[in-house]
């Protein structure tokens, strides 16, 4: 059976929206014949490893995710038509250099792309978010892109450029204004205040931080711009194709600082990447469409139900505090499934114990709340005197006689 590569769907005129996925697709396209693999457009919630690209190899019953791991798996368990001219690498130095530059790209270029397409509010709202909405099946755009943005922002956190995320800034300002109003300060309506008066106030965060951003980009590009990629292994070449082709994305992106820096100062690198793209995916701007794409729906029956299950998990992740526990439990469960599928012995499953414990706790809490509700309120009347209803029965012996008469009537 053919290998199945689960990847993020196409965007920006590239085969995928994610750098690692582009690299993995390019490597498979260059080394393996189309009959031996399938490309499945998917999202991390569909694969047990929670990360794309993910390779499913039915012959070894394994799930592998991450570009370097997929490369390693393809080289050690090659499909029948696998042919990589640079494997094994011609010299140890080429092998070492290729590994070093691939690692450098994934460690240092990913934060740059995260700043460019995810952290920057303008770019996220205008291009990345719509691209995700286009490639994800319907209910999933409600949950997944937001989580992805969180993950990517965390990867760029050490660069200290969170001010590009103007959503956070606006929210903070609104909160401050609300606090000022509550505290009784006089607030001037926005219509009466002056417009921006200094240059600094009209500039976008990207323009203000342009020099710093260019510095960050240069730190990375200076290293990869000088490399003779053509001499390195196929794996390294596909990696540079993946990462740099996302760095030079500029169609529909409102603030193109990264693409501008790369295209202006590193023309050699950009040319190499564009040539490499044409060579890999064929001529034409959308040559990758001829690759063996398979629709996710035909692959997994009952996709609709699964989509709602994935949506349910996405919603659960967003619940404060419980979401964290849920995410951890679900990841652990999926991991056990993967290992069991591969035939690795697992320890006893404690899920039932946990659920029984949770059930008993919930029951006890419910019973306690019910009991609390039945108790009389504090200050409630505990004794009540009602004026007896005046009836014929209250009139002594005559009354009894009369009431028995009424009863008989």
């Amino acid at each position, binding site marked *: 059976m053919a290998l199945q590569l689960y990847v993020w769907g196409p965007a920006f005129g590239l085969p995928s929206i994610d750098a*690692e996925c582009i690299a993995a697709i390019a490597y498979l396209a260059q080394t393996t014949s189309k009959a031996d693999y399938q490309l499945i457009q998917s999202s991390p919630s569909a694969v047990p*490893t*929670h*990360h794309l690209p993910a390779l499913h190899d039915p012959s070894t019953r394994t799930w*592998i*995710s*991450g570009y*370097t*791991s997929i490369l*390693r798996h393809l080289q050690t368990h090659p499909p029948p038509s696998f042919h990589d001219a640079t494997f094994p690498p011609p010299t*140890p*130095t080429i*092998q*070492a*250099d290729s*590994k*070093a*530059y691939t*690692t*450098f790209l994934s*460690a*240092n270029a*990913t934060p740059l792309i995260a700043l460019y397409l995810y952290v920057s509010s303008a770019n996220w709202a205008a291009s990345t978010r719509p691209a995700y909405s286009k490639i994800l099946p319907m209910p999933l755009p409600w949950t997944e892109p937001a*989580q992805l943005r*969180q*993950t990517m922002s*965390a*990867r760029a956190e050490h660069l200290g450029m969170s001010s590009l995320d103007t959503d956070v800034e606006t929210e903070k300002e609104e909160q401050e204004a609300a606090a000022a109003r509550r505290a009784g300060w006089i607030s001037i309506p926005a219509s009466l205040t002056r417009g921006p008066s200094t240059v600094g106030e009209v500039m976008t965060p990207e323009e203000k931080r342009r020099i710093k951003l260019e510095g960050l980009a240069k730190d990375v590009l*200076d*290293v990869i711009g*000088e*490399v003779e990629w053509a001499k390195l292994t196929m794996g390294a070449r596909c990696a540079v194709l993946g990462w740099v082709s996302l760095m030079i994305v500029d169609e529909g992106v409102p603030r193109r600082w990264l693409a501008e820096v790369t295209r202006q100062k590193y023309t050699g690198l950009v040319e190499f990447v564009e040539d490499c793209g044409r060579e890999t995916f064929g001529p034409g701007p959308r040559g990758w469409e001829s690759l063996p794409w398979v629709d996710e729906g035909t692959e997994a029956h009952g996709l609709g139900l699964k989509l709602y299950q994935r949506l349910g998990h996405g919603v659960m992740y967003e619940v404060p505090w419980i*979401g*964290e526990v849920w*995410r*951890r*439990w*679900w*990841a*652990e*469960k*999926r*991991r*056990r499934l993967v290992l069991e599928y591969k035939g690795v012995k697992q320890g006893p499953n404690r899920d039932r114990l946990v659920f029984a414990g949770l059930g008993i706790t919930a029951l006890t809490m419910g019973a306690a709340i019910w009991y609390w509700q039945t108790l009389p309120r504090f200050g409630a009347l505990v004794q009540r005197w009602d004026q007896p209803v005046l009836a014929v029965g209250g009139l002594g012996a005559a009354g009894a006689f009369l009431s028995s008469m009424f009863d008989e009537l």
Partner: protein
Amino acid sequence: MQLPAAFWIHPPELLHFDRWGRRCQHRTFRIPYTSSTATVTMASATATPPKPSARTNQPAPSLWSIPAPLQKLFNQFPLVTLDPNPLPARSQTLTSASDTLPTLYIFSSDEDALEGKPSINPTCLKWQTLLHLSHVPFLTSPSSNHASPTGSLPFLLPPRTVSPNPIPSTSIPLYISRHTNSPSPLPTSPRSEAYLSLLTPLRLAFLQTLYLTPAFTPLLKKFYIDPSTRSSLLGTILQTQLSAAASSAVLQGLGLHSQTGTGGIDSENLYADAAEALDSLAILLQESQTGWFFGEEKPSEFDAGLYGYVGVIMAHMDTPEGRLGGLVRRAGGGGGELVGWWERIRREAWGGDGLSEGGEK
């Protein structure tokens, strides 16, 4: 409280006796707006008029003076006065020697820091090794991230007589070049930047081994938890927090959501990546004729940075459970380049067995 005698002399018209024969004190209040006066009898009646002449000669005691029986009781204390505690062992050396020597604050235990032994933390060990390699004498002191001005260890405190400002770890190379005759460090070449990124997979595998492998919990306890707290409850909490932080760091490095938990980590892949990284470093070392990375005449910051990891791995993780030790030994096709390099640095920086000679060199 005794009142002065004159207090008791009232105008006769204001002296009344209530119905039990007690003398009452009358006060006159003027009620506003009515211009009439109302005489109100207060409930505070004095049952017996005191004899004013009896206590006039004694000084009136203050409101705050302590009654004599209580005073006697309090005079009994303190029952025992203990001798003052001696200063902690580490502070004695520090106070006597830190007038002339800088102090490096690292993760360590009290005894190890006193002897200047290598730290268990890769970053601390890196700078400790670099200072030794540059022959800058210094003291070490155990500390925690909370003490650091940058929020992470290590940091260097110059001699007390020179400057009170701490030096963050990133400025240590500058400090070294200023205090030795060596030229200031050259800007790093692009190729060395690329090879430096190979420490990332090594770091992830290191975190996985130390924090997330049950076999290494005793080591974690010994070096990170025991120096911080003696309470077993706090220790458990601290350990849980450390493991959670490590797993989120590993997940973030792999590109997963940081709260996925250990279920999202494929440790086989982590170790395979680390093995490939170590292989590449060993190949790089084979290229160099001098025995140090990039053909340098003497070990540089790159060497120290790698030694931070390899030193800790070879000292504590070269066991059957610690797979990283085996990976270092087998790196580069089993030629033992990295092990040979590790022993060279150890001799150069730590003087032979790697455990003695702290600040003397």
